[in-house]
């Protein structure tokens, strides 16, 4: 594989950039693989990469219905953080933060990781107490957390509404300075390029139409490009999890819901951090191009449509303007939607299933992007060793029936309620 560097850039400039190697090939599927990963998104590509890199399993195929990186890894708001209270989520995400910090070097691909910090705003004394507790829990798990008072927040984000007569005055906030953003497409492409170079087949435009299961063991998958045998199969299909589960006669603690995001026209650098509104569901950051990247509530009813509905967008942006009044002056450049695998406690599932050789990675709700490296790493471990790693032991499929939920937000089963 051609290494990307300033020297290769200069060298290729002399040939008008016509001689770059393809970043990944377009192979026809083989008859059989050791492992098939269904879903060529961030998590699927990362899983294949870590299977090859950490476990030396390279006879691997990624099967993707559309094109790689065309689902939620291309539709998110690029936020990376580990500001969780519960141990399972905190330790898992902080492990991921380490992988993020090393990712550009590791993949030889600039993912533009930008640890600019995230600020969760608080709008009441009770919320300050809750953030103080969460911040302490984070610090006990080795995650950086700083509790900010009103004046400290005002220094960092003076453009927020600090006037006297507001419905939700800013009392302070919880900051994780090491959180940040990354270039989402580069993450998918970086993992794809490295996985391909180690022998993984990336098979695009190939839809899974069924599974071969016999005596409780997975034998392979049926696809629009023919049947492919496999010793092990991993599902990484986010919002489409229930569609595949139905083919396997499985019912999961997952509902598929639609989440929208949007960007404004680009403006000069203004906002240095990722900021979330504490009195509702709205968050905002500024991209390197200058666009304000914004997101908020789910549309609120089961949906596979991948495009949003205006009432939700209006509601989200109303909250946005309450937090940052200047947003009302901006024009909207683009809005889009992605389908989320909403689990019943808001936490993911990375586990084995009752079918031998079938592994499940789902339930990321709207927090899948930041989890990409840790999810791929632990899922690869679970598949390769046929047992869960300590980091994803809490993300079990049976935690719902045993009552060991990881209910980070205390929302109960209706995680789609806003």
């Amino acid at each position, binding site marked *: 594989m051609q290494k990307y560097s300033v020297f290769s850039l200069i060298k290729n400039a002399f040939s008008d950039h016509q001689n770059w190697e393809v970043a990944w090939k377009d192979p026809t599927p083989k008859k059989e693989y050791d492992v098939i990963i269904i879903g060529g998104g961030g998590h699927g590509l990362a899983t294949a990469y870590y299977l090859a890199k950490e476990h030396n399993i390279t006879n691997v195929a990624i099967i993707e219905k559309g094109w790689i990186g065309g689902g939620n890894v291309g539709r998110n708001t690029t936020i990376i953080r580990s500001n969780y209270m519960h141990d399972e989520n905190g330790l898992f995400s902080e492990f991921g933060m380490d992988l993020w910090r090393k990712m550009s070097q590791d993949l030889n691909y600039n993912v533009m990781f930008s640890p600019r910090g995230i600020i969760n705003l608080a709008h009441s004394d009770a919320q300050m107490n809750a953030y103080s507790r969460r911040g302490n829990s984070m610090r006990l798990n080795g995650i950086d957390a700083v509790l900010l008072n009103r004046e400290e927040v005002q220094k960092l984000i003076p453009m927020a509404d600090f006037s006297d007569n507001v419905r939700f005055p800013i009392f302070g906030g919880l900051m994780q300075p090491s959180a940040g953003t990354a270039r989402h497409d580069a993450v998918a492409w970086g993992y794809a390029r490295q996985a391909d170079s180690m022998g993984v087949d990336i098979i695009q435009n190939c839809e899974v139409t069924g599974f071969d299961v016999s005596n409780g063991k997975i034998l392979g998958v049926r696809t629009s490009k023919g049947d492919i045998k496999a010793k092990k199969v991993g599902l990484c299909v986010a919002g489409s999890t*229930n569609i595949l589960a139905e083919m396997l006669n499985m019912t999961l603690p997952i509902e598929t819901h639609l989440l929208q995001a949007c960007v404004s026209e680009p403006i000069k650098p203004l906002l240095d951090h990722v900021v979330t509104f504490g009195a509702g569901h709205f968050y905002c950051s500024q991209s390197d191009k200058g666009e304000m990247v914004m997101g908020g509530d789910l549309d609120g*009813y089961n949906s596979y449509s991948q495009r949003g509905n205006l009432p939700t967008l209006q509601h989200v942006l109303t909250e946005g303007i309450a937090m940052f009044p200047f947003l009302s002056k901006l024009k909207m450049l683009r809005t889009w939607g992605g389908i989320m695998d909403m689990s019943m406690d808001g936490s993911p599932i990375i586990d084995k299933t009752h079918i031998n050789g079938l592994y499940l990675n789902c339930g990321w709700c709207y927090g899948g992007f930041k989890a990409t490296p840790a999810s791929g790493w632990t899922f690869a471990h679970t598949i390769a060793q046929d047992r869960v790693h300590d980091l994803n032991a809490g993300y079990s499929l049976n935690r719902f029936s045993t009552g060991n939920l990881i209910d980070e937000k205390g929302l109960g089963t209706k995680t789609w309620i806003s």
Partner: protein
Amino acid sequence: MLYINCPHCGLRSQNEFAYGGDATVKRPELNKEISDQEWDNFVYLRKSPRGKHLELWHHISGCRQWIKVERDTSTHEIFKTYKANEAIE
């Protein structure tokens, strides 16, 4: 914008309604010994189909009645609405 035909009030915009989830899940009968699996099915497990979905909506800014709506989850087409106690064909 979804337009939902409330069986009590007529056609109203989505803004008047709150969503209540899958209408096909049934609470296990009272005073009957049930297994963990049956609770699991009721509380946590959902089919979440792509296509026709029978779901509960609450006409919260209208007549405040719960209703059932048959809707396509990929096109958002609404086929039929029912009163909460109405039999589903």
